[in-house]
């Protein structure tokens, strides 16, 4: 794009999104406002995509300084490398799809609310996310981050009449701001050491700091990690997530799942891979992050299995999937020094999973939204058999579900396969990772159970009474986004070479071009598949093209066999053991799905209120931050407040006494200080 400079593109995008927000504030009619928002977002997306392509082809893009704040030496600079480009490709896609979906959805489901409460924030959210992934100045990074929190919070808070949702929004607000405070402290520490907010200086400073005062460096990482992991929804910091996600309207939730929570991962990659690239740090924190990731995988997914509210279920499973990314990132960090190739592969795997999960999870939220649109409920025990009425959503849901569960040949399988491979290869070098790999592989089956429950109950089986009033499929503007995202899921799964090339470039930018082995050396020369090699020979192979051909061939063979005798067909009633039964009565409720298994693991997630086994009490205490971190703080605060209040008795003499005591104290202190 020689004709337009990158920063022009970027600012065009910002301008369009902000303008769209301003325009849609005035919006009264849901539908018209929605289409306006889509138009603006679409234009902005095009600009961003061009920018991303520019960065991918032309390499890193640096912009001059804007908005220089003389006082603290912060200035708005943008740096767009391939890592940013990945997000610049992803974010507009998801955001645009969600917005297009919103047009009819919001108009139907939230008809009586005001459009000005939704679209402005949705657009601003996209703008702020774009800012986060492009800026290269900690100060403005923080500003965009906070903007992102605020706008998303406004979306969570969309339904202000429902007390429960308001509380969820509140929890989200407080949790994220505590995290933000941690980040702020970390940023300040860096600033005081480097004297500027620029990423580059920060990186340079931390390098020296690690030698001079390592403990401080560890504190820094911890602070950053808390900030990012909270936003990413990692267990146990992500307690807000399963409350906040269901509270927001479905398209908004899709946007969160697809873009916002992923920025936690983005932050971790940016900060830990680029600022803290020192062996002492990377190994320790790689281990910690990987372990926490595995924990998150385990707990989140098992908790998801327990839920019967579709959106809560998906939210918990999001926690689990975030765990996979953290596992990849952690592995990458851990081997950053010892086995660069493995580090690169793990990082790429994490980012790959980020992409695939973004698409599929957003898609699933859209599916659930469609079901809600049709039936007005999200309770899986009430919904059933919608597939006959909405085949598109069903197909999309199956694709997305299998993709998240890591079933070939969909996108999730490739990313998870990469993660397994890297963790197992890591396990060969550091046995700890074997356990993590096992957890990851085992839990991905649990994920399969979760999503089988969702798909099977919601779309398959007999139509439930809740679905009886449904007349036809959802409108086209709600179908198209699902189709697009589903297509992306398949594409990412079937042609892994494209995302791999992109992510490989991103990894090169993050880790440094000289640091990463040649592409062919890592992923083999065959463009149709992957032959993974992290230095010790071929670690594993996966070739979707050949496998698909084989699968189709075998399926055709099977079909041929089945039709070989030209058996006649007949459609009859379902057989209920020879009795006349109303399907609603004999319907298989979602709650019963894999019940014994659920009971075996029901105590895993701290916020479960099932009858508790004594052994789990302590674990719950440890894992549940509310009871042992936030709770005591709040109590102490209120106690202090009570004491203070009682001190203000209202009698003037008392207050004057304070003045007198005050002056005596001041005198005393000053004497001590000055003498």
């Amino acid at each position, binding site marked *: 794009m020689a004709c337009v400079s990158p920063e022009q593109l970027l600012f065009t995008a910002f301008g369009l999104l902000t303008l769209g927000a301003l325009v849609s504030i005035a919006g009264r009619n849901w539908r018209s406002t929605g289409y306006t928002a889509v138009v603006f977002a679409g234009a902005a997306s095009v600009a961003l995509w061009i920018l991303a392509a520019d960065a991918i082809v032309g390499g890193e893009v640096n912009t001059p300084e804007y908005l220089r704040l003389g006082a603290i030496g912060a200035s708005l600079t943008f740096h767009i490398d391939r890592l940013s480009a990945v997000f610049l490709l992803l974010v507009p896609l998801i955001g645009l799809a969600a917005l297009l979906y919103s047009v009819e959805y919001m108009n139907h489901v939230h008809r009586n609310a005001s459009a000005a409460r939704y679209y402005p924030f949705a657009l601003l959210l996209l703008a702020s996310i774009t800012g986060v992934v492009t800026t290269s100045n900690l100060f403005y990074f923080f500003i965009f981050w906070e903007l992102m929190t605020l706008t998303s919070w406004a979306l969570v808070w969309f339904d202000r009449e429902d007390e429960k949702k308001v509380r969820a929004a509140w929890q989200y607000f407080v949790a994220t701001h505590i995290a933000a405070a941690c980040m702020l402290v970390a940023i300040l520490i860096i600033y005081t050491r480097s004297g500027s907010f620029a990423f580059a200086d920060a990186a340079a400073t931390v390098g020296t700091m690690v030698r001079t005062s390592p403990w401080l460096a560890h504190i820094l990482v911890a602070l950053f990690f808390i900030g990012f992991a909270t936003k990413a929804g990692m267990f146990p910091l992500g307690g807000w997530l399963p409350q906040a996600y269901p509270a927001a309207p479905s398209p908004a939730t899709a946007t969160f799942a697809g873009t916002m929570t992923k920025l936690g991962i983005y932050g971790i990659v940016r900060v830990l891979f680029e600022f803290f690239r020192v062996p002492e740090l990377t190994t320790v924190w790689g281990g910690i992050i990987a372990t926490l990731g595995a924990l998150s995988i385990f707990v989140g997914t098992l908790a998801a299995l327990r839920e019967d509210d579709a959106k809560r279920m998906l939210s918990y499973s999001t926690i689990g999937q975030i765990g996979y990314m953290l596992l990849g990132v952690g592995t990458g960090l851990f081997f950053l020094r010892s086995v660069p190739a493995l580090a690169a592969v793990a990082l790429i795997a994490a980012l790959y999973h980020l992409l695939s999960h973004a698409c599929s999870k957003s898609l699933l939220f859209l599916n659930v939204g469609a079901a809600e649109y049709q039936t007005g409920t999200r309770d899986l025990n009430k919904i059933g058999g919608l597939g006959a009425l909405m085949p598109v959503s069903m197909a999309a849901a199956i694709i997305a579900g299998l993709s998240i569960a890591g079933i070939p040949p969909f996108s999730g399988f490739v990313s998870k396969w990469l993660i397994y491979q890297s963790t197992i290869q890591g396990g060969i070098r550091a046995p700890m990772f074997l356990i993590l790999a096992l957890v990851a592989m085992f839990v991905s089956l649990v994920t399969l159970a979760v999503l089988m429950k969702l798909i099977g109950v919601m779309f398959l089986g007999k139509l439930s009474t809740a679905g009886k009033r449904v007349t036809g499929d959802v409108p086209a503007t709600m179908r198209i986004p699902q189709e697009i995202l589903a297509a992306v899921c398949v594409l990412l799964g079937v042609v892994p070479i494209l995302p791999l090339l992109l992510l490989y470039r991103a990894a090169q930018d993050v880790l440094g071009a000289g640091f990463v082995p040649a592409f062919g050396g890592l992923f083999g020369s065959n463009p149709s598949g992957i032959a993974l090699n992290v230095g010790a020979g071929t670690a594993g192979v996966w070739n979707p093209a050949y496998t698909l051909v084989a699968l189709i061939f075998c399926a055709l063979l099977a079909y041929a066999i089945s039709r070989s005798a030209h058996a006649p067909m007949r459609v009859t009633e379902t057989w209920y053991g020879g009795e006349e039964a109303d399907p609603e009565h004999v319907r298989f409720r979602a709650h019963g799905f894999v019940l014994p298994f659920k009971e075996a693991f029901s105590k895993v997630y701290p916020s479960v209120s099932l009858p508790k086994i004594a052994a789990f009490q302590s674990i719950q205490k440890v894992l549940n931050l509310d009871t042992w971190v936030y709770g005591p703080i709040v109590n102490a605060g209120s106690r202090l407040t009570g004491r203070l*209040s009682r*001190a203000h*008795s*209202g*009698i*003037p*003499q008392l207050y004057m*006494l304070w003045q*007198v005591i005050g002056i005596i104290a001041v005198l005393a202190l000053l004497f001590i200080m000055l003498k």
Partner: protein
Amino acid sequence: MAEINPKLIHALSLLMILTSFAAVEARNLRHATFAYLAQALLICGLLFAYSAQNEALIYWAVTALITKAILVPLFLWRATAGAGAEQETKPLIGFGVSAVLLVALVAVMYKFTHMHAGLFVDPTSNIAVIAETNLAVAFTVFVLGLYAILTRRDAIKTVIGLCLLENGVHLSLVSLAPGIKETALAGIATEVVVTVYLLLYVIGGIREKFGSTDTFELSELHW
């Protein structure tokens, strides 16, 4: 210019302690008013005495005569008019304790000023010897004012305490920099008579709304 008379000033300033003590301790507000009037006259006398050294102080003396010795007592008198208004609400600390405290206070202040007089005035100058005593008195009066404000439940008594504070400050002002003519300006500018008027006006309102001037009843607004 004429030399000022230390003996006179000593006498006047020492008398101030007694008057202020009386103003604080008198249970009958009108008596307290008289005590304050006496003290006001004393401080005017002091100013006149100092004016021998610095004639600018005469203006201040005259102003002080008008404000301290005429207006403020007048306001206090009007504020204490009416049935039962003269009698003060029972204070927190009785006479005996106050007396003991006063003695201790005077002793401490004398010790302090005579030790650290050099901090405030040039020890070699002729006013040093006066300043030592006067500062002691000034601080005592100041603290007595605070004492009144803190331990007296009656709103009007707190106002008197406030006036004592002001007198203390003025006394220290004049004895710290008697030779400078701006001192007079400063003194005139810092008369609190308007504040006293306002306070008494509000207290009048309080008397009619609350039925008394007991400050302990003014605790409706709290935490």
